[in-house]
Protein backbone atom coordinates (compact mmCIF):
# COMPACT_ATOMS: atom_id res chain seq x y z
CA UNK A 1 0.00 0.00 0.00
CA UNK A 2 1.20 3.51 -0.69
CA UNK A 3 -0.13 7.06 -0.67
CA UNK A 4 1.69 9.98 -2.22
CA UNK A 5 0.82 13.69 -2.31
CA UNK A 6 2.87 15.42 -4.98
CA UNK A 7 3.44 19.11 -5.67
CA UNK A 8 4.63 18.59 -9.24
CA UNK A 9 3.36 16.93 -12.41
CA UNK A 10 3.43 13.13 -12.46
CA UNK A 11 2.94 10.45 -15.10
CA UNK A 12 0.17 8.12 -13.86
CA UNK A 13 0.80 5.30 -16.34
CA UNK A 14 4.48 5.30 -15.44
CA UNK A 15 3.59 5.14 -11.76
CA UNK A 16 1.24 2.20 -12.38
CA UNK A 17 3.91 0.39 -14.37
CA UNK A 18 6.70 0.94 -11.86
CA UNK A 19 4.50 0.15 -8.85
CA UNK A 20 3.19 -3.09 -10.36
CA UNK A 21 6.67 -4.23 -11.36
CA UNK A 22 7.54 -4.48 -7.66
CA UNK A 23 4.76 -7.03 -7.08
CA UNK A 24 5.27 -10.80 -7.07
CA UNK A 25 4.66 -12.19 -10.56
CA UNK A 26 1.56 -14.38 -10.74
CA UNK A 27 -0.06 -13.08 -7.55
CA UNK A 28 -2.72 -10.79 -9.04
CA UNK A 29 -5.39 -11.73 -11.52
CA UNK A 30 -6.88 -8.26 -11.69
CA UNK A 31 -5.79 -4.64 -11.68
CA UNK A 32 -8.20 -1.69 -11.73
CA UNK A 33 -7.20 1.94 -11.91
CA UNK A 34 -8.73 5.40 -12.01
CA UNK A 35 -6.93 8.45 -13.36
CA UNK A 36 -8.43 11.90 -12.97
CA UNK A 37 -6.99 14.65 -15.19
CA UNK A 38 -7.60 18.36 -15.39
CA UNK A 39 -10.02 19.58 -18.07
CA UNK A 40 -9.61 22.97 -19.75
CA UNK A 41 -13.28 23.85 -19.17
CA UNK A 42 -15.84 23.82 -16.35
CA UNK A 43 -19.41 25.16 -16.28
CA UNK A 44 -18.99 26.58 -19.82
CA UNK A 45 -15.89 28.57 -18.83
CA UNK A 46 -12.38 28.02 -20.12
CA UNK A 47 -10.02 27.09 -17.30
CA UNK A 48 -6.37 28.04 -17.70
CA UNK A 49 -4.89 26.66 -14.50
CA UNK A 50 -6.07 25.28 -11.24
CA UNK A 51 -4.59 25.44 -7.74
CA UNK A 52 -5.14 22.52 -5.41
CA UNK A 53 -4.98 23.39 -1.73
CA UNK A 54 -5.04 20.76 1.00
CA UNK A 55 -4.77 20.22 4.75
CA UNK A 56 -1.46 18.38 4.67
CA UNK A 57 -1.49 16.42 7.92
CA UNK A 58 -5.14 15.41 7.59
CA UNK A 59 -4.90 14.60 3.90
CA UNK A 60 -2.07 12.12 4.35
CA UNK A 61 -3.75 10.52 7.32
CA UNK A 62 -7.13 10.35 5.58
CA UNK A 63 -5.77 8.73 2.43
CA UNK A 64 -3.95 6.13 4.52
CA UNK A 65 -7.19 5.42 6.41
CA UNK A 66 -9.01 4.96 3.09
CA UNK A 67 -6.45 2.43 1.93
CA UNK A 68 -6.68 0.48 5.18
CA UNK A 69 -10.47 0.46 4.99
CA UNK A 70 -10.41 -0.74 1.38
CA UNK A 71 -8.08 -3.58 2.31
CA UNK A 72 -10.45 -4.53 5.15
CA UNK A 73 -13.58 -4.45 2.98
CA UNK A 74 -12.17 -6.18 -0.12
CA UNK A 75 -9.51 -8.89 -0.62
CA UNK A 76 -6.98 -6.52 -2.14
CA UNK A 77 -3.36 -7.52 -2.57
CA UNK A 78 -2.17 -3.98 -3.04
CA UNK A 79 -3.34 -0.41 -3.43
CA UNK A 80 -1.86 2.88 -4.62
CA UNK A 81 -3.15 6.45 -4.25
CA UNK A 82 -1.37 9.47 -5.75
CA UNK A 83 -2.82 13.00 -5.59
CA UNK A 84 -1.52 16.34 -6.85
CA UNK A 85 -1.46 19.63 -4.98
CA UNK A 86 -0.29 23.07 -6.09
CA UNK A 87 -0.70 24.57 -9.54
CA UNK A 88 -2.11 22.16 -12.14
CA UNK A 89 -2.45 22.68 -15.89
CA UNK A 90 -4.99 21.18 -18.34
CA UNK A 91 -4.07 17.64 -19.29
CA UNK A 92 -2.08 16.99 -16.14
CA UNK A 93 -3.08 14.19 -13.82
CA UNK A 94 -4.79 15.13 -10.55
CA UNK A 95 -5.36 11.74 -9.00
CA UNK A 96 -4.37 8.12 -9.56
CA UNK A 97 -5.87 5.13 -7.79
CA UNK A 98 -4.73 1.56 -8.42
CA UNK A 99 -6.08 -1.65 -6.91
CA UNK A 100 -4.73 -5.17 -7.36
CA UNK A 101 -6.50 -8.39 -6.39
CA UNK A 102 -6.87 -12.05 -7.32
CA UNK A 103 -10.21 -11.49 -9.07
CA UNK A 104 -11.76 -8.53 -10.88
CA UNK A 105 -14.69 -7.69 -8.61
CA UNK A 106 -12.58 -6.71 -5.60
CA UNK A 107 -10.24 -4.53 -7.64
CA UNK A 108 -13.06 -2.81 -9.55
CA UNK A 109 -15.33 -2.21 -6.55
CA UNK A 110 -12.52 -1.04 -4.26
CA UNK A 111 -11.22 1.37 -6.91
CA UNK A 112 -14.69 2.84 -7.39
CA UNK A 113 -15.22 3.17 -3.63
CA UNK A 114 -11.84 4.81 -3.12
CA UNK A 115 -12.33 7.55 -5.71
CA UNK A 116 -15.83 8.35 -4.44
CA UNK A 117 -14.68 8.51 -0.81
CA UNK A 118 -11.68 10.61 -1.76
CA UNK A 119 -13.77 13.08 -3.75
CA UNK A 120 -16.31 13.59 -0.98
CA UNK A 121 -14.13 13.51 2.13
CA UNK A 122 -10.40 13.97 1.52
CA UNK A 123 -9.53 17.59 2.41
CA UNK A 124 -8.47 19.01 -0.97
CA UNK A 125 -9.91 22.16 -2.54
CA UNK A 126 -9.74 23.33 -6.16
CA UNK A 127 -9.47 26.94 -7.23
CA UNK A 128 -9.81 27.60 -10.96
CA UNK A 129 -8.13 30.42 -12.82
CA UNK A 130 -9.92 31.51 -15.98
CA UNK A 131 -10.02 34.56 -18.25
CA UNK A 132 -12.28 36.53 -15.92
CA UNK A 133 -10.36 35.81 -12.74
CA UNK A 134 -10.48 32.94 -10.31
CA UNK A 135 -13.10 31.00 -8.40
CA UNK A 136 -13.27 28.17 -5.87
CA UNK A 137 -14.94 24.99 -7.06
CA UNK A 138 -17.88 24.69 -4.67
CA UNK A 139 -18.62 20.98 -4.98
CA UNK A 140 -17.69 17.89 -6.92
CA UNK A 141 -19.97 16.38 -9.52
CA UNK A 142 -22.24 13.68 -8.20
CA UNK A 143 -20.49 10.53 -9.39
CA UNK A 144 -21.02 11.34 -13.07
Amino acid sequence: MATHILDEDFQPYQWLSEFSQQMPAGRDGAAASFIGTMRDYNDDATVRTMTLEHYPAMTQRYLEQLEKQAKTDWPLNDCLIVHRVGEVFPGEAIVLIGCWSAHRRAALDACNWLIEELKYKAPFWKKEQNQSGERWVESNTDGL
Partner: protein
Amino acid sequence: MSIQVKFFASLRESLGQSETTVEQASTVTEVWDLATQSATPPNNLLVAVNLDYANMQSQVNDGDEVAFFPPVTGG
Protein backbone atom coordinates in the same frame (compact mmCIF):
# COMPACT_ATOMS: atom_id res chain seq x y z
CA MET B 1 -5.47 26.08 27.79
CA SER B 2 -4.63 26.56 24.14
CA ILE B 3 -6.42 25.30 21.05
CA GLN B 4 -4.94 25.78 17.60
CA VAL B 5 -7.53 26.78 14.98
CA LYS B 6 -7.09 26.54 11.21
CA PHE B 7 -9.18 27.70 8.25
CA PHE B 8 -8.88 26.48 4.70
CA ALA B 9 -9.77 27.42 1.12
CA SER B 10 -12.68 29.82 0.52
CA LEU B 11 -13.40 30.00 4.25
CA ARG B 12 -9.84 31.17 4.93
CA GLU B 13 -10.27 33.91 2.33
CA SER B 14 -13.70 35.05 3.49
CA LEU B 15 -12.62 35.21 7.13
CA GLY B 16 -9.28 36.77 6.27
CA GLN B 17 -7.25 34.45 8.49
CA SER B 18 -5.60 31.08 8.11
CA GLU B 19 -5.02 30.26 11.75
CA THR B 20 -5.42 31.53 15.25
CA THR B 21 -5.39 30.33 18.84
CA VAL B 22 -8.28 30.05 21.26
CA GLU B 23 -7.50 30.08 24.97
CA GLN B 24 -10.68 28.73 26.53
CA ALA B 25 -13.38 26.54 24.95
CA SER B 26 -15.09 23.22 25.60
CA THR B 27 -16.89 22.60 22.31
CA VAL B 28 -16.23 23.20 18.61
CA THR B 29 -19.04 25.76 18.57
CA GLU B 30 -17.27 27.78 21.25
CA VAL B 31 -14.02 27.54 19.30
CA TRP B 32 -15.75 28.86 16.19
CA ASP B 33 -17.38 31.75 18.05
CA LEU B 34 -14.15 32.83 19.73
CA ALA B 35 -12.01 32.42 16.62
CA THR B 36 -14.39 34.27 14.29
CA GLN B 37 -15.96 36.82 16.67
CA SER B 38 -19.20 34.83 16.38
CA ALA B 39 -19.46 34.99 12.60
CA THR B 40 -22.42 33.08 11.16
CA PRO B 41 -21.10 29.64 10.20
CA PRO B 42 -21.81 28.60 6.59
CA ASN B 43 -24.47 25.90 6.20
CA ASN B 44 -22.02 23.53 4.57
CA LEU B 45 -19.22 24.07 7.10
CA LEU B 46 -17.02 21.04 7.81
CA VAL B 47 -14.86 20.62 10.90
CA ALA B 48 -12.05 18.34 12.01
CA VAL B 49 -10.60 17.90 15.49
CA ASN B 50 -7.07 16.51 15.63
CA LEU B 51 -7.30 15.53 11.92
CA ASP B 52 -10.55 13.54 12.25
CA TYR B 53 -13.97 14.75 11.10
CA ALA B 54 -16.06 16.09 13.96
CA ASN B 55 -19.13 18.31 14.41
CA MET B 56 -20.02 21.57 16.11
CA GLN B 57 -21.03 19.75 19.30
CA SER B 58 -17.76 17.83 19.61
CA GLN B 59 -15.73 18.36 22.78
CA VAL B 60 -12.30 19.95 22.62
CA ASN B 61 -9.38 19.77 25.02
CA ASP B 62 -6.16 21.60 25.73
CA GLY B 63 -3.68 21.11 22.90
CA ASP B 64 -6.29 20.14 20.30
CA GLU B 65 -6.16 21.32 16.70
CA VAL B 66 -9.52 22.35 15.24
CA ALA B 67 -9.89 22.96 11.51
CA PHE B 68 -12.82 24.54 9.68
CA PHE B 69 -13.29 24.22 5.94
CA PRO B 70 -15.83 24.19 3.08
CA PRO B 71 -16.95 21.06 1.18
CA VAL B 72 -13.95 19.27 -0.28
CA THR B 73 -13.34 19.17 -4.03
CA GLY B 74 -10.33 16.95 -4.64
CA GLY B 75 -9.91 14.09 -7.09
